[in-house]
Protein backbone atom coordinates (compact mmCIF):
# COMPACT_ATOMS: atom_id res chain seq x y z
CA UNK A 1 0.00 0.00 0.00
CA UNK A 2 1.45 3.34 -0.94
CA UNK A 3 1.48 6.28 1.40
CA UNK A 4 -1.16 8.83 0.51
CA UNK A 5 0.65 11.70 2.23
CA UNK A 6 2.94 13.98 0.24
CA UNK A 7 6.60 13.63 1.19
CA UNK A 8 7.49 16.25 3.79
CA UNK A 9 10.12 18.82 2.94
CA UNK A 10 11.88 18.07 6.22
CA UNK A 11 11.18 15.87 9.18
CA UNK A 12 11.16 17.22 12.70
CA UNK A 13 12.13 14.93 15.50
CA UNK A 14 10.61 14.61 18.92
CA UNK A 15 13.26 14.05 21.62
CA UNK A 16 12.37 10.65 23.07
CA UNK A 17 13.77 11.57 26.46
CA UNK A 18 15.39 8.14 26.75
CA UNK A 19 19.10 8.34 27.57
CA UNK A 20 21.21 7.75 24.48
CA UNK A 21 18.32 7.12 22.10
CA UNK A 22 18.30 10.71 20.92
CA UNK A 23 22.02 10.61 20.15
CA UNK A 24 21.65 7.48 18.05
CA UNK A 25 18.56 8.78 16.24
CA UNK A 26 20.04 12.27 15.81
CA UNK A 27 17.40 14.02 17.84
CA UNK A 28 14.62 11.56 18.61
CA UNK A 29 11.76 9.90 16.80
CA UNK A 30 10.24 11.51 13.69
CA UNK A 31 7.49 13.85 14.84
CA UNK A 32 3.90 12.96 13.95
CA UNK A 33 5.10 9.67 12.49
CA UNK A 34 4.95 6.06 13.54
CA UNK A 35 8.19 4.30 14.39
CA UNK A 36 8.16 0.55 14.33
CA UNK A 37 10.15 -1.04 17.17
CA UNK A 38 10.86 -4.59 16.17
CA UNK A 39 12.50 -7.33 18.22
CA UNK A 40 12.38 -10.93 19.37
CA UNK A 41 10.60 -12.03 22.53
CA UNK A 42 12.43 -10.59 25.53
CA UNK A 43 14.20 -7.87 23.55
CA UNK A 44 12.70 -5.10 25.75
CA UNK A 45 10.13 -3.82 23.25
CA UNK A 46 7.60 -3.17 25.99
CA UNK A 47 10.25 -1.42 28.09
CA UNK A 48 10.94 0.84 25.12
CA UNK A 49 7.24 1.60 24.69
CA UNK A 50 6.70 2.28 28.41
CA UNK A 51 9.83 4.42 28.73
CA UNK A 52 8.95 6.42 25.61
CA UNK A 53 5.59 7.36 27.10
CA UNK A 54 6.87 7.87 30.65
CA UNK A 55 9.70 10.13 29.44
CA UNK A 56 7.15 12.22 27.56
CA UNK A 57 4.87 12.39 30.58
CA UNK A 58 7.81 13.52 32.71
CA UNK A 59 8.17 16.56 30.47
CA UNK A 60 4.43 17.26 30.52
CA UNK A 61 3.50 15.48 27.29
CA UNK A 62 0.46 13.24 27.82
CA UNK A 63 0.54 9.79 26.26
CA UNK A 64 -1.79 6.94 25.36
CA UNK A 65 -0.66 3.35 25.80
CA UNK A 66 -2.58 0.89 23.64
CA UNK A 67 -1.92 -2.52 25.13
CA UNK A 68 -2.75 -5.49 22.94
CA UNK A 69 -1.04 -8.17 25.05
CA UNK A 70 -0.46 -7.40 28.71
CA UNK A 71 -3.19 -6.25 31.05
CA UNK A 72 -2.80 -2.68 32.34
CA UNK A 73 -2.29 -3.96 35.90
CA UNK A 74 0.64 -6.10 34.81
CA UNK A 75 2.11 -3.18 32.92
CA UNK A 76 1.76 -0.89 35.95
CA UNK A 77 3.66 -3.42 38.05
CA UNK A 78 6.28 -3.97 35.37
CA UNK A 79 6.76 -0.23 34.92
CA UNK A 80 7.08 0.32 38.66
CA UNK A 81 10.07 -2.02 38.72
CA UNK A 82 11.62 0.10 35.98
CA UNK A 83 11.09 3.23 38.05
CA UNK A 84 7.95 4.61 36.39
CA UNK A 85 4.81 5.24 38.43
CA UNK A 86 2.08 4.89 35.83
CA UNK A 87 -0.78 5.10 38.34
CA UNK A 88 0.51 8.52 39.42
CA UNK A 89 0.80 9.65 35.78
CA UNK A 90 -2.76 8.44 35.15
CA UNK A 91 -3.95 10.47 38.13
CA UNK A 92 -2.29 13.56 36.70
CA UNK A 93 -3.88 13.01 33.29
CA UNK A 94 -0.56 12.27 31.64
CA UNK A 95 -1.16 8.62 30.86
CA UNK A 96 -4.18 6.78 29.50
CA UNK A 97 -4.49 3.09 28.78
CA UNK A 98 -6.51 1.72 25.92
CA UNK A 99 -6.95 -1.83 27.10
CA UNK A 100 -7.18 -4.09 24.08
CA UNK A 101 -5.51 -7.06 25.68
CA UNK A 102 -7.32 -10.35 25.26
CA UNK A 103 -9.69 -11.17 28.09
CA UNK A 104 -9.41 -14.91 28.66
CA UNK A 105 -12.70 -14.91 30.59
CA UNK A 106 -14.72 -13.93 27.54
CA UNK A 107 -15.18 -16.28 24.65
CA UNK A 108 -15.34 -14.72 21.21
CA UNK A 109 -15.95 -16.17 17.77
CA UNK A 110 -15.54 -14.64 14.38
CA UNK A 111 -18.32 -15.01 11.82
CA UNK A 112 -18.17 -12.91 8.68
CA UNK A 113 -16.53 -9.64 7.83
CA UNK A 114 -15.35 -7.02 10.30
CA UNK A 115 -12.88 -4.18 10.72
CA UNK A 116 -11.14 -2.58 13.70
CA UNK A 117 -13.08 0.68 13.66
CA UNK A 118 -13.89 0.21 17.36
CA UNK A 119 -10.23 0.04 18.34
CA UNK A 120 -9.33 3.00 16.16
CA UNK A 121 -12.20 5.03 17.57
CA UNK A 122 -11.08 4.22 21.12
CA UNK A 123 -7.51 5.28 20.39
CA UNK A 124 -8.66 8.54 18.77
CA UNK A 125 -10.99 9.18 21.67
CA UNK A 126 -8.23 8.61 24.24
CA UNK A 127 -5.78 10.80 22.33
CA UNK A 128 -8.28 13.66 22.15
CA UNK A 129 -9.36 13.17 25.74
CA UNK A 130 -5.90 13.57 27.30
CA UNK A 131 -4.45 15.73 24.53
CA UNK A 132 -1.80 13.10 23.82
CA UNK A 133 1.29 13.90 21.83
CA UNK A 134 2.66 10.36 22.19
CA UNK A 135 1.09 6.97 21.58
CA UNK A 136 2.59 3.53 22.12
CA UNK A 137 0.98 0.39 20.69
CA UNK A 138 2.32 -2.81 22.26
CA UNK A 139 2.43 -5.17 20.56
CA UNK A 140 1.04 -5.92 17.13
CA UNK A 141 1.33 -9.66 17.79
CA UNK A 142 -1.41 -9.36 20.40
CA UNK A 143 -3.81 -8.23 17.70
CA UNK A 144 -3.01 -11.17 15.47
CA UNK A 145 -3.72 -13.47 18.38
CA UNK A 146 -7.22 -12.01 18.78
CA UNK A 147 -8.47 -11.59 15.24
CA UNK A 148 -7.31 -13.94 12.53
CA UNK A 149 -7.22 -11.85 9.37
CA UNK A 150 -3.63 -10.70 8.82
CA UNK A 151 -4.43 -8.81 5.66
CA UNK A 152 -7.15 -6.85 7.41
CA UNK A 153 -4.93 -6.09 10.40
CA UNK A 154 -2.19 -4.70 8.20
CA UNK A 155 -4.71 -2.44 6.51
CA UNK A 156 -6.11 -1.30 9.85
CA UNK A 157 -2.65 -0.62 11.28
CA UNK A 158 -2.02 1.54 8.29
CA UNK A 159 -5.26 3.39 8.96
CA UNK A 160 -4.28 3.77 12.61
CA UNK A 161 -0.86 5.20 11.66
CA UNK A 162 -2.48 7.63 9.24
CA UNK A 163 -5.03 8.67 11.82
CA UNK A 164 -2.35 9.31 14.47
CA UNK A 165 -0.34 11.24 11.95
CA UNK A 166 -3.37 13.32 11.15
CA UNK A 167 -3.65 14.20 14.83
CA UNK A 168 0.03 15.15 14.98
CA UNK A 169 0.84 12.30 17.35
CA UNK A 170 4.29 10.71 17.48
CA UNK A 171 3.88 6.98 17.95
CA UNK A 172 5.75 3.79 18.60
CA UNK A 173 4.44 0.46 17.38
CA UNK A 174 6.14 -2.67 18.68
CA UNK A 175 6.29 -5.85 16.66
CA UNK A 176 7.78 -9.32 17.01
CA UNK A 177 10.67 -10.47 14.91
CA UNK A 178 11.23 -14.15 14.26
CA UNK A 179 15.02 -13.94 14.65
CA UNK A 180 17.71 -11.49 15.73
CA UNK A 181 19.02 -11.07 12.21
CA UNK A 182 17.30 -11.22 8.84
CA UNK A 183 15.08 -8.78 7.03
CA UNK A 184 11.49 -9.52 7.76
CA UNK A 185 9.48 -8.61 10.77
CA UNK A 186 6.52 -10.84 11.48
CA UNK A 187 3.12 -10.39 9.83
CA UNK A 188 4.57 -8.18 7.07
CA UNK A 189 4.12 -5.13 9.28
CA UNK A 190 7.52 -3.65 8.48
CA UNK A 191 6.35 -3.13 4.92
CA UNK A 192 3.47 -1.04 6.16
CA UNK A 193 4.89 1.27 8.75
CA UNK A 194 8.16 1.14 6.96
CA UNK A 195 9.44 4.69 7.08
CA UNK A 196 11.04 4.34 10.48
CA UNK A 197 12.23 1.06 11.93
CA UNK A 198 14.24 0.42 15.09
CA UNK A 199 15.47 -3.08 15.87
CA UNK A 200 16.09 -4.26 19.43
CA UNK A 201 18.27 -7.32 19.80
CA UNK A 202 19.12 -9.62 22.65
CA UNK A 203 21.98 -11.73 21.37
CA UNK A 204 23.73 -14.56 23.12
CA UNK A 205 27.44 -13.98 22.68
CA UNK A 206 30.08 -16.18 24.30
CA UNK A 207 27.54 -17.23 26.88
CA UNK A 208 26.55 -13.65 27.68
CA UNK A 209 23.41 -11.74 26.78
CA UNK A 210 24.02 -8.52 24.99
CA UNK A 211 21.28 -6.04 24.15
CA UNK A 212 21.62 -3.71 21.20
CA UNK A 213 19.52 -1.13 19.40
CA UNK A 214 19.86 -0.39 15.72
CA UNK A 215 18.15 2.28 13.65
CA UNK A 216 17.34 0.22 10.58
CA UNK A 217 15.82 3.09 8.70
CA UNK A 218 14.51 6.56 9.29
CA UNK A 219 13.48 7.85 5.93
CA UNK A 220 14.40 11.36 4.99
CA UNK A 221 16.52 12.01 8.06
CA UNK A 222 19.97 11.16 9.32
CA UNK A 223 20.78 8.73 12.13
CA UNK A 224 23.69 6.69 13.49
CA UNK A 225 24.33 3.39 11.75
CA UNK A 226 25.03 0.05 13.35
CA UNK A 227 24.18 -1.56 16.66
CA UNK A 228 24.47 0.30 19.93
CA UNK A 229 24.47 -1.59 23.21
CA UNK A 230 21.77 -0.74 25.69
CA UNK A 231 20.83 -1.76 29.15
CA UNK A 232 17.63 -2.10 31.12
CA UNK A 233 18.17 -1.14 34.73
CA UNK A 234 15.57 -1.09 37.46
CA UNK A 235 14.77 2.47 38.33
CA UNK A 236 16.34 3.79 35.14
CA UNK A 237 14.48 2.16 32.29
CA UNK A 238 16.27 1.79 29.01
CA UNK A 239 19.63 3.45 28.41
CA UNK A 240 21.51 3.30 25.13
CA UNK A 241 25.28 3.63 25.25
CA UNK A 242 26.10 5.69 22.23
CA UNK A 243 29.86 5.06 22.21
CA UNK A 244 31.14 6.64 19.05
CA UNK A 245 28.06 8.80 18.73
CA UNK A 246 29.24 10.84 21.68
CA UNK A 247 30.31 14.16 20.41
CA UNK A 248 33.91 14.52 21.47
CA UNK A 249 34.23 18.20 22.18
CA UNK A 250 37.68 17.79 23.49
CA UNK A 251 39.12 21.19 24.08
CA UNK A 252 42.85 20.89 24.18
CA UNK A 253 44.05 22.67 27.20
CA UNK A 254 47.51 23.83 28.13
CA UNK A 255 46.73 23.70 31.81
CA UNK A 256 48.75 21.06 33.61
CA UNK A 257 47.76 19.17 36.70
CA UNK A 258 49.89 17.27 39.16
CA UNK A 259 50.11 13.51 39.08
CA UNK A 260 50.57 13.70 42.82
CA UNK A 261 54.21 12.65 42.47
CA UNK A 262 56.61 15.59 42.05
CA UNK A 263 59.35 13.70 40.22
CA UNK A 264 56.80 12.24 37.82
CA UNK A 265 55.48 15.76 37.11
CA UNK A 266 59.05 16.78 36.32
CA UNK A 267 59.43 13.80 33.97
CA UNK A 268 56.26 14.96 32.21
CA UNK A 269 57.49 18.50 31.71
CA UNK A 270 55.40 19.96 34.52
CA UNK A 271 52.50 17.55 34.88
CA UNK A 272 49.68 16.03 32.83
CA UNK A 273 47.26 18.10 30.80
CA UNK A 274 43.93 18.84 32.50
CA UNK A 275 41.92 16.66 30.07
CA UNK A 276 44.34 13.73 29.98
CA UNK A 277 43.50 10.06 29.93
CA UNK A 278 46.30 8.26 31.70
CA UNK A 279 46.90 4.55 31.48
CA UNK A 280 49.03 2.89 34.15
CA UNK A 281 50.13 -0.57 33.12
CA UNK A 282 52.06 -3.10 35.14
CA UNK A 283 52.07 -6.49 36.81
CA UNK A 284 50.38 -7.19 40.10
CA UNK A 285 51.98 -5.48 43.09
CA UNK A 286 54.05 -3.11 40.98
CA UNK A 287 52.40 0.01 42.41
CA UNK A 288 49.41 0.75 40.18
CA UNK A 289 46.93 1.31 42.99
CA UNK A 290 49.53 3.44 44.73
CA UNK A 291 49.98 5.54 41.59
CA UNK A 292 46.21 6.01 41.46
CA UNK A 293 46.22 6.95 45.16
CA UNK A 294 48.88 9.61 44.51
CA UNK A 295 46.80 10.91 41.62
CA UNK A 296 43.76 11.25 43.88
CA UNK A 297 45.85 12.85 46.64
CA UNK A 298 47.28 15.32 44.11
CA UNK A 299 43.73 16.30 43.15
CA UNK A 300 42.61 16.64 46.74
CA UNK A 301 45.65 18.81 47.53
CA UNK A 302 44.67 21.09 44.64
CA UNK A 303 41.08 21.31 45.95
CA UNK A 304 39.64 19.20 43.12
CA UNK A 305 36.77 16.74 43.47
CA UNK A 306 37.99 13.21 42.92
CA UNK A 307 36.00 10.06 42.21
CA UNK A 308 37.58 6.66 42.64
CA UNK A 309 36.10 3.54 41.03
CA UNK A 310 37.60 0.55 42.74
CA UNK A 311 36.92 -2.92 41.36
CA UNK A 312 39.62 -4.73 43.27
CA UNK A 313 39.63 -3.32 46.76
CA UNK A 314 36.99 -2.16 49.20
CA UNK A 315 36.67 1.38 50.43
CA UNK A 316 38.16 0.39 53.78
CA UNK A 317 41.14 -1.25 52.12
CA UNK A 318 41.79 1.87 50.07
CA UNK A 319 41.65 4.03 53.19
CA UNK A 320 44.04 1.72 55.00
CA UNK A 321 46.46 1.56 52.07
CA UNK A 322 46.44 5.33 51.75
CA UNK A 323 47.09 5.76 55.48
CA UNK A 324 50.05 3.42 55.13
CA UNK A 325 51.51 5.80 52.57
CA UNK A 326 50.83 8.88 54.67
CA UNK A 327 47.71 9.96 52.77
CA UNK A 328 44.51 10.72 54.65
CA UNK A 329 41.43 9.85 52.60
CA UNK A 330 38.85 10.08 55.37
CA UNK A 331 39.27 13.83 55.79
CA UNK A 332 38.92 14.29 52.03
CA UNK A 333 35.76 12.19 52.00
CA UNK A 334 34.12 14.15 54.80
CA UNK A 335 35.26 17.38 53.18
CA UNK A 336 33.51 16.38 49.96
CA UNK A 337 36.65 16.22 47.80
CA UNK A 338 36.70 12.47 47.48
CA UNK A 339 34.18 9.81 46.74
CA UNK A 340 34.99 6.13 46.50
CA UNK A 341 32.75 3.73 44.60
CA UNK A 342 33.73 0.15 45.20
CA UNK A 343 32.02 -2.76 43.45
CA UNK A 344 32.64 -6.34 42.46
CA UNK A 345 33.25 -6.52 38.72
CA UNK A 346 30.96 -9.54 38.56
CA UNK A 347 28.10 -7.76 40.34
CA UNK A 348 26.74 -6.42 37.06
CA UNK A 349 27.23 -6.48 33.32
CA UNK A 350 29.68 -4.00 31.80
CA UNK A 351 26.84 -1.92 30.34
CA UNK A 352 25.28 -1.63 33.77
CA UNK A 353 28.62 -0.68 35.34
CA UNK A 354 29.09 1.98 32.70
CA UNK A 355 25.65 3.47 33.28
CA UNK A 356 26.19 3.55 37.05
CA UNK A 357 29.58 5.16 36.58
CA UNK A 358 28.12 7.78 34.26
CA UNK A 359 25.33 8.50 36.71
CA UNK A 360 27.85 8.92 39.54
CA UNK A 361 29.96 11.21 37.37
CA UNK A 362 26.89 13.25 36.46
CA UNK A 363 25.86 13.52 40.06
CA UNK A 364 29.25 14.23 41.66
CA UNK A 365 30.85 16.16 38.79
CA UNK A 366 34.44 15.20 39.62
CA UNK A 367 37.52 16.79 38.11
CA UNK A 368 39.50 13.58 38.43
CA UNK A 369 38.51 9.96 38.28
CA UNK A 370 40.44 6.74 38.70
CA UNK A 371 39.41 3.26 37.57
CA UNK A 372 41.34 0.51 39.34
CA UNK A 373 41.50 -1.72 37.48
CA UNK A 374 40.19 -2.04 33.95
CA UNK A 375 41.54 -5.58 33.96
CA UNK A 376 39.19 -6.61 36.75
CA UNK A 377 36.29 -5.41 34.62
CA UNK A 378 37.64 -7.21 31.59
CA UNK A 379 37.32 -10.51 33.45
CA UNK A 380 34.40 -12.45 32.10
CA UNK A 381 33.44 -9.86 29.52
CA UNK A 382 33.57 -10.45 25.79
CA UNK A 383 36.24 -8.58 23.87
CA UNK A 384 33.58 -6.59 22.07
CA UNK A 385 31.72 -5.62 25.23
CA UNK A 386 34.97 -4.60 26.90
CA UNK A 387 36.04 -2.48 23.95
CA UNK A 388 32.69 -0.73 23.94
CA UNK A 389 32.94 -0.13 27.67
CA UNK A 390 36.40 1.43 27.43
CA UNK A 391 35.46 3.60 24.47
CA UNK A 392 32.16 4.58 26.06
CA UNK A 393 33.74 5.57 29.36
CA UNK A 394 36.69 7.41 27.90
CA UNK A 395 34.53 9.28 25.39
CA UNK A 396 32.27 10.33 28.23
CA UNK A 397 34.98 11.62 30.53
CA UNK A 398 36.67 13.41 27.63
CA UNK A 399 33.39 15.09 26.90
CA UNK A 400 33.13 16.18 30.51
CA UNK A 401 36.79 17.27 30.54
CA UNK A 402 37.71 15.09 33.45
CA UNK A 403 41.25 13.88 34.05
CA UNK A 404 41.13 10.11 34.13
CA UNK A 405 43.58 7.49 35.31
CA UNK A 406 42.96 3.84 34.43
CA UNK A 407 45.06 0.93 35.61
CA UNK A 408 45.69 -2.24 33.66
CA UNK A 409 47.25 -5.38 35.06
CA UNK A 410 49.66 -7.21 32.83
CA UNK A 411 49.46 -10.95 33.14
CA UNK A 412 53.19 -11.48 32.99
CA UNK A 413 54.97 -10.58 36.23
CA UNK A 414 57.78 -8.80 34.49
CA UNK A 415 55.63 -6.82 32.12
CA UNK A 416 54.05 -7.88 28.88
CA UNK A 417 52.17 -6.10 26.21
CA UNK A 418 48.58 -5.66 27.34
CA UNK A 419 48.75 -1.99 26.52
CA UNK A 420 49.18 -2.75 22.86
CA UNK A 421 45.45 -3.45 22.82
CA UNK A 422 44.78 -0.83 20.24
CA UNK A 423 41.45 0.36 21.59
CA UNK A 424 43.00 1.31 24.90
CA UNK A 425 46.29 2.75 23.85
CA UNK A 426 44.96 4.90 21.05
CA UNK A 427 42.54 6.78 23.26
CA UNK A 428 44.98 7.41 26.08
CA UNK A 429 47.10 10.54 26.21
CA UNK A 430 49.66 9.26 28.68
CA UNK A 431 50.95 5.73 29.11
CA UNK A 432 52.93 4.96 32.23
CA UNK A 433 54.61 1.57 32.47
CA UNK A 434 55.49 0.01 35.83
CA UNK A 435 57.80 -2.98 35.82
CA UNK A 436 59.76 -5.31 38.04
CA UNK A 437 63.42 -5.53 37.23
CA UNK A 438 65.75 -8.13 38.45
CA UNK A 439 68.85 -6.72 40.07
CA UNK A 440 71.61 -8.64 41.78
CA UNK A 441 69.74 -10.92 44.16
CA UNK A 442 66.78 -8.57 44.52
CA UNK A 443 63.66 -7.51 42.64
CA UNK A 444 63.39 -3.80 42.12
CA UNK A 445 60.77 -1.58 40.54
CA UNK A 446 61.09 0.76 37.59
CA UNK A 447 58.81 3.01 35.59
CA UNK A 448 58.87 4.94 32.37
CA UNK A 449 56.59 7.40 30.63
CA UNK A 450 56.03 5.53 27.37
CA UNK A 451 54.00 8.22 25.71
CA UNK A 452 52.71 11.65 26.44
CA UNK A 453 50.62 13.23 23.74
CA UNK A 454 51.42 16.82 22.87
CA UNK A 455 54.27 17.26 25.28
CA UNK A 456 57.96 16.65 25.69
CA UNK A 457 58.73 14.11 28.39
CA UNK A 458 61.56 12.25 30.04
CA UNK A 459 61.96 8.98 28.17
CA UNK A 460 64.34 7.35 30.60
CA UNK A 461 63.58 4.28 32.67
CA UNK A 462 63.66 5.24 36.35
CA UNK A 463 63.95 3.04 39.35
CA UNK A 464 61.45 3.77 42.12
CA UNK A 465 60.94 2.62 45.67
CA UNK A 466 57.80 2.41 47.76
CA UNK A 467 58.30 3.89 51.18
CA UNK A 468 56.06 5.13 53.98
CA UNK A 469 55.61 8.30 51.90
CA UNK A 470 54.52 6.36 48.84
CA UNK A 471 56.42 6.33 45.56
CA UNK A 472 59.87 7.86 45.43
CA UNK A 473 61.36 8.00 41.94
CA UNK A 474 65.14 7.67 41.73
CA UNK A 475 67.80 7.98 39.10
CA UNK A 476 67.50 6.66 35.56
CA UNK A 477 68.68 3.12 35.00
CA UNK A 478 71.08 2.95 32.13
CA UNK A 479 71.84 0.06 29.84
CA UNK A 480 68.52 -1.59 30.49
CA UNK A 481 66.98 -3.55 27.67
CA UNK A 482 63.74 -5.31 27.15
CA UNK A 483 61.55 -2.95 29.20
CA UNK A 484 58.68 -3.11 26.77
CA UNK A 485 58.71 -6.81 26.19
CA UNK A 486 59.18 -7.56 29.87
CA UNK A 487 62.37 -9.48 29.25
CA UNK A 488 64.38 -7.38 31.63
CA UNK A 489 67.80 -7.44 33.06
CA UNK A 490 70.12 -4.83 34.46
CA UNK A 491 73.75 -4.97 33.57
CA UNK A 492 75.49 -7.15 36.06
CA UNK A 493 78.55 -4.96 36.12
Amino acid at each position, binding site marked *: MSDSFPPPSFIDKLPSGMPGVDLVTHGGLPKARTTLVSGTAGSAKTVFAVHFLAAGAASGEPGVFVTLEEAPDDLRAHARSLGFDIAELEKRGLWRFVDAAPNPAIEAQVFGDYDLA*ALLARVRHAVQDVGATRVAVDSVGGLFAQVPDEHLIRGELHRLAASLRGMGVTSVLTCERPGEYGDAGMFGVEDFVADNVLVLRNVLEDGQRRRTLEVLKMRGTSHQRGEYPFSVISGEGLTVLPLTAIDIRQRSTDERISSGIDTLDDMCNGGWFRDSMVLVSGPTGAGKTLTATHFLAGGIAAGERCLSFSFEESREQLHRNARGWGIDFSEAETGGLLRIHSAFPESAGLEDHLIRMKNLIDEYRPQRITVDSLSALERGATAKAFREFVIGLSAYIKQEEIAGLFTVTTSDLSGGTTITDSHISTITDVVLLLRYIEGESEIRRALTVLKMRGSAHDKSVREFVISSDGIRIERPISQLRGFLTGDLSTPSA
Partner: protein
Amino acid sequence: MARVQALQAQDSERFRVDIVDVLQRPDVADQHGILATPTLVRVEPQPEYRIIGDLSRGDDLLSYLLPDTVSQTP
Protein backbone atom coordinates in the same frame (compact mmCIF):
# COMPACT_ATOMS: atom_id res chain seq x y z
CA MET B 1 -27.73 -5.53 12.41
CA ALA B 2 -31.16 -5.75 10.90
CA ARG B 3 -31.33 -9.40 11.86
CA VAL B 4 -30.43 -8.66 15.46
CA GLN B 5 -33.07 -5.95 15.63
CA ALA B 6 -35.55 -8.34 14.10
CA LEU B 7 -35.02 -10.65 17.05
CA GLN B 8 -36.16 -7.95 19.44
CA ALA B 9 -39.18 -7.13 17.31
CA GLN B 10 -40.02 -10.82 17.14
CA ASP B 11 -39.97 -11.42 20.88
CA SER B 12 -39.43 -8.28 22.98
CA GLU B 13 -39.97 -10.26 26.19
CA ARG B 14 -37.04 -12.51 25.52
CA PHE B 15 -34.63 -10.20 23.69
CA ARG B 16 -33.33 -6.73 24.42
CA VAL B 17 -30.85 -5.33 21.94
CA ASP B 18 -28.80 -2.12 22.39
CA ILE B 19 -27.02 -0.82 19.36
CA VAL B 20 -23.95 1.32 19.93
CA ASP B 21 -22.18 3.29 17.23
CA VAL B 22 -18.56 3.12 18.37
CA LEU B 23 -17.67 6.19 16.35
CA GLN B 24 -20.24 8.17 18.40
CA ARG B 25 -19.63 6.38 21.70
CA PRO B 26 -16.00 5.24 21.84
CA ASP B 27 -16.28 5.37 25.63
CA VAL B 28 -18.80 2.51 25.56
CA ALA B 29 -16.50 0.50 23.28
CA ASP B 30 -13.74 1.23 25.80
CA GLN B 31 -15.82 0.01 28.76
CA HIS B 32 -16.45 -3.28 27.04
CA GLY B 33 -12.99 -3.60 25.51
CA ILE B 34 -14.31 -3.86 21.96
CA LEU B 35 -11.78 -4.01 19.12
CA ALA B 36 -13.65 -5.14 16.06
CA THR B 37 -16.72 -3.79 14.36
CA PRO B 38 -19.32 -5.21 14.32
CA THR B 39 -19.17 -7.10 17.59
CA LEU B 40 -22.25 -8.64 19.09
CA VAL B 41 -21.94 -9.00 22.86
CA ARG B 42 -24.20 -11.41 24.66
CA VAL B 43 -24.43 -9.79 28.07
CA GLU B 44 -27.20 -12.03 29.38
CA PRO B 45 -27.36 -14.89 29.96
CA GLN B 46 -23.90 -15.11 31.52
CA PRO B 47 -21.17 -15.96 30.73
CA GLU B 48 -20.47 -13.08 28.40
CA TYR B 49 -19.95 -14.24 24.85
CA ARG B 50 -19.01 -12.35 21.70
CA ILE B 51 -19.55 -12.67 18.02
CA ILE B 52 -17.26 -10.70 15.74
CA GLY B 53 -18.26 -10.10 12.12
CA ASP B 54 -21.37 -9.25 10.13
CA LEU B 55 -22.90 -12.75 10.07
CA SER B 56 -23.53 -12.15 6.41
CA ARG B 57 -23.32 -15.76 5.46
CA GLY B 58 -26.93 -16.32 6.36
CA ASP B 59 -26.06 -18.47 9.35
CA ASP B 60 -28.61 -19.11 12.01
CA LEU B 61 -28.07 -16.21 14.39
CA LEU B 62 -29.76 -17.85 17.33
CA SER B 63 -27.62 -20.95 17.14
CA TYR B 64 -24.55 -18.77 17.52
CA LEU B 65 -25.97 -16.41 20.08
CA LEU B 66 -27.62 -19.00 22.29
CA PRO B 67 -26.00 -22.29 21.43
CA ASP B 68 -27.19 -23.88 24.70
CA THR B 69 -30.82 -22.98 24.12
CA VAL B 70 -30.80 -24.24 20.59
CA SER B 71 -29.24 -27.54 21.45
CA GLN B 72 -31.83 -28.04 24.21
CA THR B 73 -34.78 -27.41 21.88
CA PRO B 74 -34.22 -29.32 18.68
